[in-house]
């Protein structure tokens, strides 16, 4: 198991590379969902404003 994490001595390069990629993947998921939530909020707000105005 320890050998696995040691990655033949390259651990200092391999694991950060995977970590960065994972971070980008997570960023994409979080950011996309947040943009959708924000768009829904915006649309809701616009609709309610128009409702009050009419």
């Amino acid at each position: 198991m320890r050998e696995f994490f040691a990655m033949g001595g390259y651990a200092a390069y391999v694991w950060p590379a995977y970590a960065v990629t994972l971070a980008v993947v997570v960023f994409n998921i979080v950011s996309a969902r947040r943009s959708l939530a924000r768009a829904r909020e915006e649309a809701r707000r616009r609709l309610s404003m128009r409702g009050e105005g009419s």
Partner: protein
Amino acid sequence: MATARPLNWTWFHRLGSPPYIYELAARLAPWFGWPAALAIVGGLWGGLVLAPPDYQQGDGFRIIYVHAPSAWMSLMVYTTMAVAAATGLIWRMKIAHAVAASCAPIGASFTLAALVTGALWGQPMWGTYWEWDPRLTSELILFFLYLGYLGLRAGFDDTQRADRASGLLAVVGVVNVPIIHYSVTWWNSLHQAPSVMRLAKPTMPPSMLVPLLLMLLGFTLFFVAILLVRLRAEVLNRERSASWVREVLGP
């Protein structure tokens, strides 16, 4: 919705309908998201555990399983973005522009991943984190192309003008990408010996190649899933007064 020419295909017509897209994207996303997760987990297992160490690079070569998909994404997403932008410009379809806008943040983030993982791969292999090799240099320039697209888009308040201006930029950019890559390769070949690090894809045994293909597939599916989520947001942002929005939002 006025179109430049009559479109005879019903499915193409329906693709132009925002409520249809909004709903379709919601239904399709899990069908790309979960297979993506599966493919990526499978690729990670195959690449990190099952594949034997490389003859020259030992376990260090395993970075390829995150670097190559990231690099692939950076180019594939840009091309998709440009094709969508061209479609939007030629046929004046808002949806196409929405697709292009959704692509940009995805592509830019994976270009960054490609640069970082490439540098991390370079240090143990070449002895320096950055070596101005043609592929990484081209990736860096691609990153600036993405930034330019996002920057141009941000400069317009009006969504329609932002779409069309950045769309043209994307088309001009995609034409330039091969030119830039050629010139950078040409430049690099003048000044140093061919790079020591060859990805050696043709001589990859299946135990190494299959996980790589799985990762490429997984990331592509992931791109579509994320694109669908962002597309829904973009569609909502472009539909200011449509009645279908009220129905679809609910409590």
